[in-house]
Each structure stands twice: as C-alpha cells, then as structure tokens.
C-alpha cells in the first residue's frame, strides 16, 4: 500500500476543456515568408532551426510571399482547390451516409485537406504512398474515381477490398497507394523498405508516408526514422500534427516538450515544420524534400502543423473532451478558405466560381454515391461473393480453408 499523494506525477493537460473558452495564445507563429529556404542538399546538422519555426507562404492578406513560394500556376492552384473541395464534400457526404446507417464507420479529414492534396501534387505519380487513414485527399488528387472509393466504404459488390476492410481503409495499387492498416503507424517503416528497394533497383521513385502526431509514440515511428536515417532512404516521413489523437491532445504525445519536427535532428535528418493549412507551404516543403530524396539526400521529416476540425471518427463526440468552438479558434485558418482567397487575390477565382464548383462537385458526389449504392451497401443489396472471404489468406487456398468454406456451404 502506497501513500496517495500523486504529488510529483506530472500529467500534461490541454489548455482548455469543454465549457472553457478556446484560445491558442501560446503559439508562436512567425510571419509568412520569414523562413529562408535552404539548399536541398543542406547538412541536417545545420538545419536545426527549421524544426522550431513554421514555414509559411500565404500571409494574412492571402498573398504568397518569401523564398518558399512554389510559384504554382493558377491552373495548378485551381486544381488543388478543387481537389480539396472534393475531398471535403466527399467526406461530408460519406459521414452523412454513415449517420443514416449505410456504413459502419467513417473518418473525415476536414481542416487537413491541404496536407494530402498539396503533397500528392508535389510528388510524382510513380512515387509510392503509405498513408494513415486521414489522407483521402491523396486518392482524390491522384484521380481515383470517387465511385471506387465509395464502393469500398460500402463494402459492396465492387469493393476492391472485397468487403474485408473497414470503410476508409483504402487500397489502390494502380495509383501507387498502399493498403491502409487499421493498426496505427505500421506503414511508417514499411515505406522506408519500399524506398530502399527503389534505391536498390536504381529507380527514381521515392516513397512518402504519413503518421498522426499521436501515433509518433508507437515503435514504428522510431523504426522508420532509424532505418531511413541509417540507409539514407529516399523517403518523406510526414507527421500530421492535427493537435488531437481521439481525445488526447498533442501534449500526451510529447508535443509540449518539443516540436515533432525536432525529432529529425536526433536521427540526423532534416526536420521541417510547416503550416499544414497553407497549401503553398505544404507543396513547397514537399517538393524540397522530394527533390532532396531524389538527389540522394535521403529522408526528410515533415511536421504538418494543422488542426483536426471535426470529430476523430463517427465513433466519438469531440465536445466531450475539447471546447466546442476550438476549431474556429485555430489561428492558422482553414486550408480551403486560404487557397480560395489567394486565388481571388490573384484575380484567378471568385466567390461565384467557388460556389459553382461546390455545386458541381456536390452533384458529382451525389451521382456517384447513387451509383455506388446500386452496387450494394453494407446492409442491403449486392455484396462480394461470400466464398471470397476464404480467399487471399494465402496466395492459393490451402485445404483447411477449402474445407471450412465447404462447411459454411458457400
């Protein structure tokens, strides 16, 4: 029996809990354009400062400023905006459909669309993606048909995962998009292996992987960092710091002691911290890291400083653990609004075009969803063949599975 003092046990807590007024006054946010851009082959030991600042391109007047401005064409910017919008509207639709019982589960990426979309644009199509479950924008930017994504989420007869995976755990081989695991973090060091195989073969393709800030505590993060550093793997290691991991804030993952980008330093790789809601900054940082990797400069750790603007998933209610209006208090704004305003500022977009785009995409999503439902939902309509559940456990079905299939009578 021990005395119950608990006195020196230091358990971090977020600044505000439900019922309190949210604010982020503690954040030290440098102005856009103030962080210099290093040479792609810069020595990581000299790059220490990049982990403790925030690379930003879009300023408060919606202008692109500073060395990191990637100078994208207006067309590219509009593509990025459209893909982010599509991601968001797709998410909204799917979440609604989950609410009415068409799917078992759903996870939105609201507020984080720039991370996935800008990164997909900055990478080559041949580059291999090892995402977590909150980068659906990668698929959308790479042109996956929403219909296929929906078919998967509905576990219907056209689901390429054959009804075996939860919604949002996509797989898309053709698009060089790896199978998402339900187990957090496991893809992080796998991406390093893929990248090394590419280097081994003398190919030019690199790998990119994503992990939530909460998940950095898993061993996979450490293994990915270690193996990437040791073998100088051509890989982008992305930490999406969206401030929350289900109900626990980033301090429970160590975020109050150091930035996640700072981890890079101890492994001898650059750690870049970027405003994850700034499409241009995310693009530029990704391009820098990809160029570096392709040039033989090895891995880069990128911390995307962003905010999870909605619930963790359809299974939780964030008002139970954070102030109701915390999302609106996020000082770095919304990635869609910021890119939209930038385009408007450039004279390349307008509120009318924006509304029209929303209307078009919404109609497209609706039509796709309608079609997807015609191939079945989890609860009704067509499903994959039941007998298929005994396939793909092994490359060829062993006897015991054949017998079990027969026992089930399928």
């Amino acid at each position, binding site marked *: *029996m*021990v*005395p*119950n003092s*608990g*006195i020196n*046990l230091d*358990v971090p*807590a977020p600044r505000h*809990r439900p019922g309190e007024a949210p604010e982020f006054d503690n954040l030290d946010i440098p102005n856009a354009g103030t962080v210099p851009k290093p040479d792609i082959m810069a020595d990581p030991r000299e790059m220490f400062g990049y982990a403790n600042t925030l690379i930003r391109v879009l300023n408060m007047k919606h202008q692109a400023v500073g060395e990191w401005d990637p100078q994208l064409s207006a067309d590219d910017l509009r593509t990025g905006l459209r893909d982010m919008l599509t991601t968001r509207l797709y998410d909204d639709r799917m979440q609604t459909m989950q609410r009415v019982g068409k799917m*078992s*589960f759903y996870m939105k990426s609201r507020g984080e669309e720039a991370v996935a979309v800008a990164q997909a644009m900055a990478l080559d199509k041949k580059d291999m993606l090892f995402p977590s479950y909150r980068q659906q924008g990668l698929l959308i930017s790479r042109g996956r048909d929403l219909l296929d994504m929906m078919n998967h989420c509905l*576990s219907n007869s056209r*689901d390429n995962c054959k*009804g*075996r*995976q*939860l919604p949002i*755990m996509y797989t898309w081989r053709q698009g060089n998009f790896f199978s998402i*695991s*339900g*187990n*957090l*973090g496991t893809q992080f060091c796998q991406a390093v292996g893929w990248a090394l195989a590419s280097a081994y073969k003398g190919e030019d393709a690199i790998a990119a992987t994503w992990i939530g800030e*909460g*998940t950095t*505590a*898993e*061993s996979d993060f450490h293994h990915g960092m270690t193996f990437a550093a040791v073998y100088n793997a051509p890989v982008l290691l992305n930490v999406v710091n969206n401030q929350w*991991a*289900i*109900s*626990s804030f980033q301090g*429970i*993952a*160590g975020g109050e002691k150091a930035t996640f980008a700072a981890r890079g330093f101890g492994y001898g790789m650059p750690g870049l911290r970027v405003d994850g809601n700034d499409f241009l900054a995310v693009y530029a940082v990704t391009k820098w890291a990809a160029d570096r990797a392709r040039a033989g400069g090895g891995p880069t750790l990128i911390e995307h400083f962003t905010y999870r603007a909605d619930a963790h998933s359809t*299974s*939780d209610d964030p008002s*139970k*653990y954070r102030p109701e209006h915390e999302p609106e208090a996020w000082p770095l704004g919304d990635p869609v609004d910021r890119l939209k305003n930038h385009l408007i500022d450039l004279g390349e977009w307008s509120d009318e075009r924006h509304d029209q785009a929303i209307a078009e995409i919404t109609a497209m999503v609706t039509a796709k969803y309608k079609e997807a439902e015609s191939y079945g939902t*989890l609860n009704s309509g067509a*499903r*994959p063949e*039941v007998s298929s*559940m*005994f396939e793909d*456990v092994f490359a060829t079905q062993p006897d*015991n*599975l054949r017998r*079990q299939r027969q026992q*089930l009578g*399928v």
Partner: protein
Amino acid sequence: MVKMTMVQAINSAQDVMLEKDNSVVVFGEDAGYFGGVFNCTEGLQKKYGKQRVFDTPIAEGGIIALAIGMGVNDMRPITEIQFSDYIYPAFDQIVSEASRLRYRSGGEYWAPITIRTPCGGGIRGGQTHSQSPEGIFTHVSGIKTIMPSNPYDAKGLLISAVEDDDPVVFFEPKRLYNGPFAGDPTQPPQSWDSHKKGEVPAGYYTIPIGKAETVRAGSDLTIITYGTMVHVSLAAAELSGYNVEVIDLRTLIPLDIDHIAASVCRTGRCVVVHEATKTGGFGAEILSQIQEECFWKLEAPITRVAGWDIPYPHAFEWEYFPGQGRVLAAIKLVMEG
C-alpha cells in the same frame, strides 16, 4: 445488489480498487479524461484525479513497460489496451518481461499488473477491431488469462486480477458490454437488466481466478466455452432439444480442468466453442486435455466450433461469427454422429 451493464461493472471494479488501494492507478489511451472509448473508465479521473487515472501516449509497448516498472515499485497498475487487436506492439513486454520477471529473478521481482482489453467481434469492427487473441497468451507461461461473460463475473474477476500478484490479461468481450448476445444480430438487443448476472454488488467482492462455472446443467453433452460464446452456446443448447451442459470457463489460465473433466467424463460428449480462429486456438488445448483426461469415457469425437482461419472480414461478420447454427450443428453431429 444493483443493475449494471458489463461496462458499468468493469468501471465499478476499478472504482472500488482505486478507492480501496492507493497503489492502484489506471491508464491507457483515452482512458483518462475521456473515460475510454467504451466508457469503462468514465468518471474515474474526475473522481480520483489525473495522477491516478490518466491518458498515455499511443504506444502499447510503452504502456505495459510503464506498468511493469510501476508494479516493481509497489503499485498495482490497471492498463487498458484500447482493442485487443492492438495488443501486439506490447507482446514483447508481456511475454518476455511481465510473464517471466518473477521466474528469472528468482522471485525477487514481479509485475502485479492487469491488462484490460476488449476483444471479439459482432460490432462491425472489421479485421482490426474484432479479434480474439487469447490463444497466443494461453501458450505463454507466467500469464493468467481471463475472459468473463457477464457483469457479475467481470467485476469480481477484475478485482481478483488487480489484487493478484501475477500479470493478468483480462479480455472483455465488447459485444457483451451493453447486453448479453446470443449470436443473432437480427434479434433486438438484450439488456443486462433482465439477466441474473446483471445484478452486481455495489462494493467490493471477488470471484476466484481459475474456477469455471457450470451455467447450464445437462447430461447428454458438455459445451466448454467462454466469453460471448457462452450466450450463443446456451441458446443453441436450448434449441437443440438435448440435455446439454454448458460450462463457462471464465478463467482460461489456470484452466479448471478438474471441473471440465468431471462434466465430460459424465456426459461422454463434448463441444468446445470459441470465437477465435480455430487452428491453434485455445480450443485445441481444451480438447487435448479433455481427450487426455476422459478418453475412455468419450462416446463421440470432441468437436470444436470456432472462427474460421481467416481475418475477421468486415462485410461477412455474421458468416464469420460462430453463431447458434454452427453450435447447433456441432451438438447434432456429436449426438447423432
């Protein structure tokens, strides 16, 4: 006695132990402020403070290592692994460390830790929120393994686990959290309110680790099972028309083989039922021990009903789940050949 769901009973066991013993602390992913994704620790941080009930980084291996270290320093940590599908990152700490610490140190150190973790399917969780991995722990010397099937047992066994000086892996069939479940998802959900074992003392009590319970007496055939499958087996027993005895193991290791063997030697027929995949599952061990103990009394082969040897497929949950039909077929097979 008050009515409790299994969630409430598990919450209550932790509450009782936090109250009773300052060396008890509770931690896990989302287990602190939020009260756990299944609410099993709800309200406890508020009541006992964040030094005693707290959130952890997402690192199951670290959680168990932390618990072992605390256990060595006179504490009795209760840890929550959010889903038993996510216990594998902690496997080394459980198997190489907690389970062998007392042995390897000649008894100088030990790890009095409890690892709570929800298991089993039936909640549309797909392959990564539905697993029943008890069979990989029951093979490891030095770990006790428990899986209750109702609120009353859950609370009493959980208190025993916390007070036990050995590491205990405490599997909670999540499909039973809010009501008994006899395996038919088309039936309206049942409530623990109307179940005898939904009556739970508000305060402290224990159920001994290592004791099975006969939950239905019978003379034709014995079903050995645990967890959710207790309810499925009872329903199948009812439907079968035979006089079927059903034994709820409650504790897997140490196994109450005397209790089991006494029944099977009497009935001469046996079906072993679990939700985990069949090959190499704990059912094989149960079958083996019964065969060893009761061979000369057996009138038919012991038969196993279990999950298929595949991952738990999201869209085929009910084709995977070993429901009443499969148990019934096994009863018939064993009775009728």
